């Protein structure tokens, strides 16, 4: 029975191989029998040695990874439109890999019984299947190899830990920007500026005849050798160096070194006599190699679509895992990763402003709150953010607010796409209560500080850890000054904040055993965030605020500053600084290996040594809490 849902399914699958070559009748016949499966994040679709399912799968929304659970290696990463779990059904054997939802996903299950006869009838489908079964390359992130079925690796290959660059295919940009030989130099430069590219291909009769890079403008035009009105023919490098596609990274590097050039032209048959398919630049190679923050920053800044940033964030995670493995000091890791995350957010805001069509009416600042504001966010967590804009005349306020709310909606949605969950308490700039003018914010902050109930303390604790993610710094400074002036007037606020800092549940019981959660989904797990990290974070905040130190929002940096300000407590503060870093590192490692936020820890999985390490940090927590109790006389006033 053809229905709306089957039409929707057909509409989707027809865009991807092998379904793109099917005729409409077979397509609809298949679509009507599809099952739509919902998988929550981290749930298993099939495991190693499981019996064949009656369906193979295509990712509709979300992402699925194919893993080897024995080595916990991710062997392939299936994006929207990729199919998986097909080969075992053809080979008539059990699954060799485990498929797991990497994000919350919706997958289509396509019945094999129905697909087999269709595949046999259709030559193109058969060829596609043969090619993908036979393919041995494995680069999870290269778009050019997507849609292949990786179920085929035999054990020998699975054991290979490193992907060698000489086997990895270099991905190249397929969006060719070209001009003709008669184009003027100025026109070509304008086109390159508009498209934000560093090189342009010169074609004649659809064949590549030359290439111009930024360097050619400097060497041959600005030096005065050629006027900007001359044709590009006078400055282009010709002939072009051409290669066929499926060039490996090493091959491409060699080719560039050999001819001392930075761009290769990829053509259909590898000679200049066929049409160009794309350009492979040194930059593309660097991105393929990946593990380099500078390259990632550049790539993020170039991204014009949110989806692209999402892909780049995967590389950031690979980088993070590598750093942790190499035992690089956490302070440095956090700096690099936060810098990369900040760049992502900046780019997202830029993209969103472009979407708005009109530039912002007044200056504004996008604030990162919570862990991101403290530069302590290494894994993807919830987004907490706020927006502040310059004061405007009262009659313009509604209009201005509407603009920034609209902008915030674009930004929070895009952040959600790249992997930041929406804040469940709606503390986001897209909430009208978190998108205000400078004066409105000041009023709100004054209210919190002068009426400190438990809620106000919670609000302000999120709010005092903020950093500028995008926009005008003076707005932020103005807010900070206002906070310190107001806190001076209401010293009792600090006592409430201090009291709030002592509210976190204790990490250990009377006999120094770990206290675990009593019920809920995380029963018997240790809550690292609220029992260990939060007390340290909260304590640092109230202490630093009492010293009126602004512009340091990072917890361990706050402790380092405190050690400087109070030499008599130096040792304790440095211990706290160390403990914070150690705990965060611990949490990040846990999060990476379990693909979650790392907040809840299964104690049984820890080694004796790890447990000892954890317990050592608890000593610092206890002592800092005692210091706060004494200093702010919390018990006297509230007890």
């Amino acid at each position, binding site marked *: *029975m053809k*229905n*709306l*849902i*089957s039409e*929707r*399914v057909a509409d989707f699958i027809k865009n991807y191989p092998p379904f793109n070559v099917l005729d409409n009748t077979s397509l609809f016949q298949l*679509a*009507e*029998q*599809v*099952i*739509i*499966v*919902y*998988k*929550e*994040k981290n749930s298993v679709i099939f495991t190693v040695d499981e019996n064949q399912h009656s369906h193979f799968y295509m990712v509709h*929304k979300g992402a699925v990874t194919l893993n080897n659970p024995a080595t916990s290696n991710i062997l392939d990463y299936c994006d929207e439109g990729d199919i998986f779990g097909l080969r075992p059904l053809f080979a008539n054997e059990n699954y060799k890999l485990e498929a797991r939802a990497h994000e*919350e996903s*919706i997958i289509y*299950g396509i019945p094999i019984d129905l697909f087999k006869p269709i595949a046999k009838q259709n030559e193109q489908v058969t060829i596609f299947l043969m090619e993908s079964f036979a393919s041995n390359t494995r680069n999870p992130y290269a778009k050019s190899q997507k849609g292949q079925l990786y179920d085929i690796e035999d054990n020998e290959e699975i054991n290979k830990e490193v992907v060698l660059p000489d086997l990895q295919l270099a991905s190249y940009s397929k969006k060719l920007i070209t001009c003709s030989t008669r184009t003027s130099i100025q026109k070509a430069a304008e086109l390159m500026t508009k498209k934000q590219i560093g090189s342009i291909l010169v074609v004649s009769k659809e064949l590549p005849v030359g290439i111009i890079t930024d360097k050619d403008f400097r060497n041959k035009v600005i030096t005065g050798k050629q006027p900007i009105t001359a044709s590009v023919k006078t400055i282009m490098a010709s002939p072009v160096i051409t290669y066929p596609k499926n060039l490996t990274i090493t091959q491409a590097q060699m080719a560039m070194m050999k001819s001392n050039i930075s761009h290769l032209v990829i053509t259909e048959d590898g000679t200049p006599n066929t049409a160009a398919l794309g350009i492979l630049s040194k930059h593309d190679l660097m991105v393929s190699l990946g593990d380099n923050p500078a390259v990632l920053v550049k790539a993020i800044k170039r991204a014009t679509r949110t989806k692209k940033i999402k892909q780049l964030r995967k590389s950031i995670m690979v980088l993070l895992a590598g750093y942790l493995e190499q035992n690089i000091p956490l302070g440095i890791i956090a700096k690099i990763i936060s810098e990369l995350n900040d760049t992502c957010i900046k780019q997202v805001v830029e993209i969103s402003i472009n979407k708005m069509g009109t530039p912002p009416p007044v200056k504004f600042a996008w604030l990162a709150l919570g862990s991101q504001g403290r530069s302590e966010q290494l894994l993807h967590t919830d987004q907490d953010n706020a927006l502040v804009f310059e004061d405007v005349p009262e009659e313009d306020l509604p209009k201005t607010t509407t603009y920034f709310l609209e902008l915030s909606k674009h930004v929070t949605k895009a952040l*959600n*796409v790249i992997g930041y969950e*929406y804040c*469940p*308490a*709606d*503390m986001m700039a897209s*909430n009208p*209560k978190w998108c205000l003018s400078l004066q409105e914010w000041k009023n709100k902050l004054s209210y919190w500080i002068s009426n400190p109930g438990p*809620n*106000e303390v*919670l*609000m302000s604790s999120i709010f005092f850890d903020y950093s500028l993610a995008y926009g005008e710094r003076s707005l932020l400074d103005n807010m900070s000054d206002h906070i310190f002036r107001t806190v001076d007037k209401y010293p009792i606020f600090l006592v409430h904040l201090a009291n709030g800092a002592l509210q976190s549940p204790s990490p250990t019981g009377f006999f120094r055993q770990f206290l675990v959660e009593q*019920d*809920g*989904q995380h029963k018997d797990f240790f809550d690292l965030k609220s029992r260990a990290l939060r007390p340290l974070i909260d304590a640092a905040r109230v202490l630093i605020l009492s010293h009126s130190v602004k512009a340091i929002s990072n917890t361990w940096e706050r402790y380092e500053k405190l050690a400087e300000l109070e030499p008599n407590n130096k040792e304790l503060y440095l211990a706290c600084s160390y403990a914070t870093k150690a705990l965060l590192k611990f949490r990040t490692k846990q999060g990476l290996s379990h693909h979650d936020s790392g907040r809840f820890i299964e104690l049984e999985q820890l080694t004796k040594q790890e447990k000892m390490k954890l317990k050592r940090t608890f000593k610092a927590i206890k002592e800092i809490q005692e210091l706060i109790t004494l200093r702010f006389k919390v018990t006297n006033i509230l007890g």
Partner: protein
Amino acid sequence: MGLFKKTPKNLPEFWKSYENLFKETQSKNFDDLVFVVLDTETTGFSFEEDRILSIGAVKIKKEIISVQDVFDIYLEQEKFNKETVHVHGLLKNGQRDCISEISAMQKFLEYVGNAIIVAHHAGFDMGMLNTALERHGLPKLKNTVLDTGVIYKKTLIKSYLVQPKSNYSLDELAEKFSISRKDRHTALGDAYITAVAFLKIISRLKEKKNFSLKSLLR
């Protein structure tokens, strides 16, 4: 009302077999439950004056929706309300094959069985369905009903400053959960959107303490 209930023997056979399904006890395990997510398009908002134009529904078993097993029917109309045509585009006796109200009810009962009914702002859809049943001298639906509009609110954290809205539209849910709004305002299309939203809500609620069917009904 209960006093003038029809005696069981007057009820048609299809109702009896529907009713019999409820004699079996349902599984306590949430993952074993069957859900029928439905949406109705109607000529208007009055239970008495207006009529159902179409019913669309999908069935969820173990987080799987089978495309083959969806429910999509259009009803013959004697009444016609011009004002809502622009919303759902269903013209009276359009090109679709339409069936009578009573056979639509019979088909629907066969489809839904003793599954748990899920709908967005379920009160309205249930009201329309129950009034339709009543017109043919049949009792009300016996199924357990979940409203995605209500259970969505359970995923939100209640906190100072952030009072959840009292009402979330299907469009807002689709937006929050990034569900494509294609086929919006067709009964089956809306049912599908509601089904995906329902699955996503449930996966978020499962993390909470004491999650069970009962906790959703509260």
